[in-house]
């Protein structure tokens, strides 16, 4: 999934950034989940919350401590994603 150069992660985005989810990098969660199966399950849960590949996403707000979690608008709802979790979401910015 990590092919197209160095894709940005959701974690690196700032306020009001907008774009498209291009993929997931489950290995970004390696520090927390040792098994590949757990990492895949984490990614599946994110997809079930609407963070699917191809979906449009806009960064809304950041949590008060260490800008964690990140509130994003995706597939018609506002979803709060932890900063660590956001590291495995690969993004492509849309120039506005």
């Amino acid at each position, binding site marked *: 999934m990590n092919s197209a150069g160095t894709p940005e992660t959701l974690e690196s985005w700032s306020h009001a950034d907008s774009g498209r989810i291009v993929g997931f990098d489950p290995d970004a969660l390696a520090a927390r989940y040792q098994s590949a199966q757990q990492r895949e399950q984490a990614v599946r849960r994110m997809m079930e*919350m*609407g963070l699917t590949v191809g979906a449009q996403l806009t960064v809304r*707000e950041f*949590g*008060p401590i260490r800008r964690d*979690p990140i509130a994003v608008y995706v597939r018609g*709802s506002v*979803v*709060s994603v932890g900063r660590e*979790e956001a590291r495995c979401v690969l993004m492509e910015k849309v120039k506005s």
Partner: protein
Amino acid sequence: MSTEAICVALAGAPNAGKSSLFNALTGARQKVANFPGVTVERKSGYMRTSSGRLIEVIDLPGTYSLEPQSVDEEISVRVITGAGIQGERHPDLIVAVADATNLERTLSLVMEIRALQRPIVVAINMMDLAEKRGMRIDLNTLAKELGVPVASTVALDRHGASGLIALLEKETAKLTSANKISTPTKSTPTTADVSKRFQEIDRIVAACVHGVGTEHIWTHRLDRVLLHRVMGPVFLAAILFTIFQSVFSLAEAPMGWIEDSIAAMGEWAGAMFGETFLASLIRDGIIAGVGSVLVFLPQIVILFFFIYLLESSGYMMRAAFLLDRLMAGVGLQGRSFVPLLSSFACAIPGVMAARTIREPRDRLLTILIAPLMTCSARIPVYVLLIGAFIPDTTVLGGMVNMQGLVMTGLFMSGIASAMMVAWISKKTILSATPSLSLMELPTYKLPSPLHLRIYLWQRTQAFLRRAGKMILAISIGLWVLSTFPAAPEGADRPAIHYSFAGQMGHAIEPLIAPLGFDWRIATGLVPGFAAREVMVGALGTVFAIENADDEGEGTRTLQESLKTTWPLGTGLALLAWYVFAPQCLATIAVVRRETNSIKWATFLFVYTLALAYVAAFVVNKVCGFLG
């Protein structure tokens, strides 16, 4: 068909408006119980179709997918897939609820359920809101695409569910025993499967939804302020402050009425039965004991009123968002905030509210620290002891009242120790990989008065039933302990001195002597096991009767008695003891029920007792050292 009512189960993602739809279908007459063997709430009710067929409706806990993440979701999934739960009947038909304003996400569970090939009806809920936002959903095409019957609903009253009711009438008539139970054939989907499912949803939505739906404009506007990094916490603090103020100030009057009625009932019982043991049992045992818990009902109802507003408006998840990082630091999650907030009124509803936490470990940890929040039962004890031992002076140049400062300090020590216990547990006995930080922040909605009424009524009933039964038994038990055996003829000490409670007090005196506690405190601690504030009454009994022998001393207030009898170290140690004090059997019993484990209830009792002992010991020794 058998004479047994047909049973349908409502399934859907959280925030799809499933509970409102359930209220609309069944009305206020609902039964709240638990699923067999687990403490997952099972809400059920009955509805009649236009032809008069009776249908039992079960409201399943919300779930995003058929891959369960929590006990609640596991129950839903077992019922939906037909895997079943021992002692729970299989529903004949599943009503899969999707949110019309958010089909592109909520259809996911519908698609999963559809694939099970069980009898299913799809309810597209909140149709009115979708139309208001410029979306037009073509139900015929949707039904054709999904290949299952579809109805739209507006879940405000029964009228808004009439399309669904008519469809249920038609579909339940088709049921035969042949298609009642199918064996589950479900394999864990891969991320590729999920991806494919959402592509299919995108195709269906493109075919059925006309007009570009705009985002709920108020959700965006409010979030800009309420989720703001600086403004958000400020608003949260203001909201919490308002809730606390209201819980204590609004409850004052009704609590007074309840206290007066209890006193009147006690007098009535006294007059009715004379000075007999029966009168004493009814008055001092049952009425006083049950009354001591009943008196917190106003605070609990007011607190639940606010919790409903926060929950149904969508703000609760915003609070969880703001506190998520803070809570994660001590091993909790944003959602732990609700049970901990409830525990300031009483730990019993707080422990029960922990059910909303998905991960079992986080739920357990929240339950274990909830009793450290300063519940309202501690306040009478604090007021008595602070009045007796803390001078009514001002400090910091007359800005701050010393007594108020100590009261605030006691609240803060409770919160701080809860966070410490959570942090230590995270590092030791309850270590686990942190749960995934992923939450839906639902659109803001106006709370509905009808649903508020149903909610408050159910919470009140649950509290009375759970607390009532236990308190009744405990009160009678403690009355026996403090009444028998009676004082011997010509006894020169108060009757309680000779009772089992008094004897126990004397027996445990050596154990608590290092804390500066004497047998009187020990005797008060025995009935204090029922409810903490009973300690005040018990001390009153011990001192009042003792002072009756002392000529001219009878008029001294209890506070003055305490001040002259005990050194400062004892008073402060007792305050410290009550920050942690485990003496509340009702809480221990609820923890046992909710965790379904005697082990954890015992652990709670032992660790709070140990904390109380150490804290009281340190306070007493420090006071002794400082002279």
